[in-house]
């Protein structure tokens, strides 16, 4: 997703949805665990429903494909963020205090 126009076009397309399963992340209560996973470093490719928390570097997961404007919560570090389009065309997050 390197082209901002591609992002705009994609927003017309129905979102992919995902069935989440726990990935061994145990730092939040059981009912929230499948929404997070540990990031394994630079070789760890993120899915379209995943983004890295800028504060604690945990991978935040959603039941649907992540798009610009989405609001996400990182429970392990209690951060709230909005998904934005970075200057390089990739999806990034702005922490909203």
């Amino acid at each position, binding site marked *: 997703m390197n082209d901002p126009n591609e992002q705009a076009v994609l927003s017309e397309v129905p979102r992919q949805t995902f069935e989440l399963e726990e990935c061994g992340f*145990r*730092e*939040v*209560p*059981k*009912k*929230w*665990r499948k*929404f997070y996973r540990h990031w394994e470093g630079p070789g760890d490719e993120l899915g379209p429903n995943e983004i890295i928390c*800028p*504060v*604690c570097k*945990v991978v935040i997961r*959603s*039941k*649907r494909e992540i*798009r610009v*404007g*989405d*609001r*996400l*919560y*990182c*429970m*392990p*570090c*209690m*951060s*709230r963020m*909005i998904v934005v389009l970075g200057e390089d065309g990739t999806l990034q997050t702005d*922490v909203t*205090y």
Partner: protein
Amino acid sequence: MSEVDRPEFDSSEFDPHGMNPEDFLDEVHSFEFWFQAVEGYLTDNPYGHESGDEPISDRPDDLTESDKDSLITTLCNYCVGETAALEGASGMIAIAPNRHSKIFLATQVVDEARHLEVFLRRLQDLGVTDPEGEIERRANPTLQVFKRRLLELVKAGDWSAALLAQNVILESMEHAAFLVHATTADPVTAQILNGVMKDERRHLGFGENDLGRLLSEHPGNRRRLADIRHEMDGLVLAVFSRAADDLPGDASMREAMGREYIETMDRLGLV
């Protein structure tokens, strides 16, 4: 926040991203959230590591005498940092401006007490018979200065400065040290450090987010807090350059950790 695309929240289907902001803050600051979170990774790990059949001091490790000596010095400094955090967090409960912060800090106090206990226990496993005396002899004097300064801010009732010093600066310093150390530590120490870092994620996040909210409500505080940050940065650098002698770990990782600290300060606008 109408431009935010938000999924409908169905309470029968837990989805954290669909919670309203107040419910989210209530949940993550709560004692219940903390209890169920730590239960996930502390159960069956007495003193921060898997229990084996034989006493830990009888298990073989690859530590040379000189490795062991460096590890003891490092652990003594961790104990100073953890004591600072324990005393800092407990003092901050009285000056915290709201119930969320008071409850969260109470959980942090327990975390910090556990950290201190597991590091003291590791010192004993390594054959240190008088950990308190050893800490006295080996502690980095600059870290002691940092601790005094932090406790002065708490005692003065300066909530925002104490939050910056304790939950942003001290926690960042500890997290960076533990992360670098865990990559080269012996297996037992590495397990202890990894468990401690799980707690630090909450403490750091609380610090940045609470301070971020405070600064957006009272932007006039930013200059004063940036000055305190710069004053304390000098101490942090001195602690790190001294710790580098005792702490193995590659330079690129240390640089990455320094970058994380700078990114946090940038997000908060404390430059």
